């Protein structure tokens, strides 16, 4: 597997501009001769499809939802970072870059992360020009707020619905291109396979989720923007339909899967209430600007929170991390919540929750100000729990939220499969072992608006593509493969529901490949997942038919892939015998539970190459060494 990162030489600040200067162009009259497939319509896919179409390429866009506007980016609440330095608090591109690479615990590529910080400002300009209604100050200029892992206010926001507003901006830009005939939009279509011809990505196979028809689509390049794989845990903050299938099927066609064990557990989510629970709801990190996290000092203290006097409250983040306080990065906040709950100080009926308290903020700023900032989040919380956070503290607990790992890509965001580009959460590129808050929106839009449109052109300018159509045997083979997989799922006719298998997989992942991991647990997880996978193929019950709308069948295909991915995640976590960011190996932590890296041995990207599944998953490990020319590696400290 070729893992040449293709990072341009020269000073960090000049790499992207130098690359843009060197990049090959496709002439306008030739652009219209190229078809590009974009799978996924979230921030990355939507912005890439719109921008590619504006340039003149013929874009075919696919999504599994009934409209491109519903992709899960829409649920991002808090905000988007940019190094505008509008608040004049000393922010620079370097600082945003540095915070991001440090936040990621030095496990991302310097060049990609620096480019992300450079592009951040253009994203804000673009969104505002589209009419995205960011929060403003009375002077009419844009407002900012603070987020975890940073000591400046660089986060732009639209109340608690920043993802929605940015996604609608990208969606509207897409629909403009649909109107102009430059994008053909296919909703309720699921990608089931990648078609390779002559070693290059040349198309995809999809299932029409309404009719069940298996379809073939040819193109000169394929852009995958299908999001993350957090739903391998069954319970996560991801939308129910978020899945790894498109990315996993590309992996099975040869695309390297990088750092699968890097999973972000978001510290502020509404705790689990029962077995019927289908998803977890996130409460934006921005709440930590004003909410104070605490637990009772006394174990098992079951007094109502407002009856617990100040001196009997343990504000553990403020005490342990005086410099960052409640705004420590997500991995640090999540881990500490687990630590206090493991010590028996957790609250609520299950003891697996901590308080996020707005009492002092309301006293200081008034209810009106707090309501303006967080009103919709407070309503959402009350709707779900029946408690009013203006009166009693929220109860929160960490939940799986984002996956930093994903398909390996080079500096051009192209995977090791020529012609297959990967954008947004689906790739592994910019966040290392931990993503900072308000950086996912930034990355998705940076990839889609400002990187992919250039680098796809660079590839197409001199790609030698065979003249083919969808009757090529590679399409026959991929379509037959997709159909067989569906027939096999429907053919098992066992006794156990798809959801039961998914829930069991999720439990294994949460217990053994979750907030903290150890060698013994990971080894157990691997064998348990193998057993569960075998049982799945012998005993799963998938109702309904192939040639019809059939949600259970969709889920069955996705769970089958999660059952393979889960094993790879556990194996990646087992091989990475160090702690880094969100990957905490219990064998490698300080007395206070901080992650201890091993830069000598593990300063690399682990890219796995699929070999087969034969009882166990067969994967070969390849390494891309991370070289740090411009930053000095340090043990992270937020104290």
């Amino acid at each position, binding site marked *: 597997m070729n893992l040449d990162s293709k990072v341009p030489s020269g000073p960090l600040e000049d790499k992207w501009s130098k690359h843009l200067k060197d990049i090959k162009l496709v002439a306008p009259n030739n652009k219209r001769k190229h078809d590009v497939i974009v799978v996924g319509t979230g921030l990355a896919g939507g912005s890439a499809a*719109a*921008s590619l179409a504006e340039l003149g390429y013929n874009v075919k866009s696919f999504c599994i*939802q*009934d*409209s*491109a*506007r*519903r992709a*899960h980016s*829409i*649920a991002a609440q808090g905000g988007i970072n940019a190094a*505008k330095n509008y608040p004049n608090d000393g922010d620079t591109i370097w600082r945003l870059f540095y915070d991001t690479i440090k936040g990621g615990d030095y496990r991302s590529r310097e060049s990609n992360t620096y480019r992300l910080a450079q592009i951040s400002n253009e994203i*804000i300009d*673009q969104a505002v*020009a*589209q*009419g995205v*209604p*960011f*929060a*403003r100050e009375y002077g*009419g*200029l*844009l407002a900012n707020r603070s987020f975890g892992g940073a000591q400046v206010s660089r986060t732009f926001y*639209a*109340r608690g*619905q920043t993802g*929605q507003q940015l996604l*609608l901006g990208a969606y*509207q*830009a897409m*629909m*403009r291109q*649909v*109107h102009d005939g430059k994008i053909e939009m296919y*909703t309720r279509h699921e990608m089931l396979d990648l078609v390779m011809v002559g070693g290059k990505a040349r198309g995809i196979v999809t299932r029409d989720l309404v009719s069940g028809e298996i379809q073939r689509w040819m193109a000169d390049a394929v852009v995958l923007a299908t999001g993350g794989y957090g739903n391998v845990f069954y319970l996560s903050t991801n*939308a*129910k339909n978020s899945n790894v299938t498109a990315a996993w099927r590309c992996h099975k066609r040869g695309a390297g899967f990088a750092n699968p064990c890097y999973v972000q557990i978001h510290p502020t989510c509404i705790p689990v*209430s*029962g077995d*019927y*629970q*289908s*998803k977890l*709801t*996130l409460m934006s990190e921005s709440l930590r600007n004003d909410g104070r996290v605490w637990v009772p000092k006394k174990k098992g203290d079951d007094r109502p929170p407002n009856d617990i006097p100040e001196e009997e409250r343990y504000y553990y983040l403020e005490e342990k991390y005086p410099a960052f306080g409640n705004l420590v990065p997500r991995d640090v906040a999540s881990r500490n919540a687990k630590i206090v709950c493991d010590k028996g100080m957790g609250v609520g009926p299950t003891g697996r929750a901590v308080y996020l308290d707005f009492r002092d903020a309301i006293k200081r700023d008034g209810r009106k100000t707090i309501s303006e900032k967080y009103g919709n989040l407070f*309503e959402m919380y009350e*709707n*779900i729990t*029946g408690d009013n956070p203006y009166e009693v503290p929220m109860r929160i607990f960490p939940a799986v939220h984002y996956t930093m790992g994903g398909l390996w890509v080079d500096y051009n965001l192209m995977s090791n499969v020529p012609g297959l580009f990967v954008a947004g959460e689906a790739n592994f590129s910019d966040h290392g072992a931990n993503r900072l808050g308000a950086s996912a929106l930034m990355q998705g839009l940076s990839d889609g608006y*400002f990187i992919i449109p250039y680098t796809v052109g660079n590839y197409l300018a001199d790609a030698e593509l065979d003249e083919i159509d969808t009757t090529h045997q590679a399409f026959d083979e991929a379509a037959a493969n997709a159909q067989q997989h569906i027939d096999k799922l429907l053919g098992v006719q066992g006794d156990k*529901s798809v*959801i039961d298998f998914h829930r069991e997989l999720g439990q294994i992942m949460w217990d053994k490949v979750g907030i903290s991991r150890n060698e013994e647990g990971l080894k157990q997880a691997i064998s348990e997942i193998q057993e569960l996978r075998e049982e799945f193929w012998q005993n799963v*019950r998938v*109702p*309904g038919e192939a040639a019809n*709308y*059939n*949600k*259970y069948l969709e889920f069955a295909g996705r769970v089958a892939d999660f059952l393979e991915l889960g094993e790879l995640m556990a194996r990646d976590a087992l091989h990475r015998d160090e702690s880094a960011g969100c990957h905490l190996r219990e064998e490698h932590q300080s007395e206070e539970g901080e992650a201890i890296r091993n830069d000598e041995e593990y300063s690399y990207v682990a890219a796995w190459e699929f070999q087969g599944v034969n009882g166990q998953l067969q994967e070969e490990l390849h390494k891309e060494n991370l070289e740090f020319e411009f930053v000095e590696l340090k043990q992270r400290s937020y104290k």
Partner: protein
Amino acid sequence: MADTFTLHLKVWRQAGPDQDGKLVDYTVDNVNEHMSFLEMLDVLNEQIVAEGREEPIEFDYDCREGICGSCDLVINGRAHGPKAMTCTCQLHMRNYSDGDTIVIEPFRAKGFPVIKDLVVDRSAFDRIIEAGGYVSVRTGAAPDANSIPIEKSVADTAFDYATCIGCGACVAACPNSSASLFTGAKLAHLNRLPQGEPERKRRTVAMVEQMEKEGFGDCSNYAECEAVCPKGISISAIAEMRRNYMKAAFAGEEL
């Protein structure tokens, strides 16, 4: 732990777009007050799959946190159920009691044909946006974000309209099946901003005409749409749309 209770459901079952549908009775036991409405339907579906006599009930959902706009049920005659400012997925079972009967139907409208059971085709909304629900700015052509100051109250009002999730409850609730609140909300978001001003007239006429082409009815000021809108979007959007439409369509100005 919370008490559990039993519910009786009457659910719209329809095998396909051209087939007749009917309400079918189900009983769900062990409903917990903390469950969401959709989790209650998940439990019912698991029961149906285990029994194996018929296919599970199809219904749309995705984020299950009230923002993607996928879920779309009419519950006891009301789009998204009894709670104001709440999507179906955000409705929790603590709003119901033991022994209640609940009728569950799809969002019905000529513009939203049924696909299967409770799943409908809302692609007409995409085509309304396609007609003009955007600002025509190419990637990379934007000036510095702070070069366009916008009065806070204007930005805030634009945001209020921009929070539309495109669920279609407004259409389902309207006796005329009008899509005026959906269309008006997008127009009210973009038309009041300086970025949207240059295309205001063209946008208004194009979107209004597309809405009519899709088979949605006219607005007769029932205001049922506002009452069911999970984001609380004001029908002032519709008045504003009409004003802009009249000015643009009948002023004889070139569009």
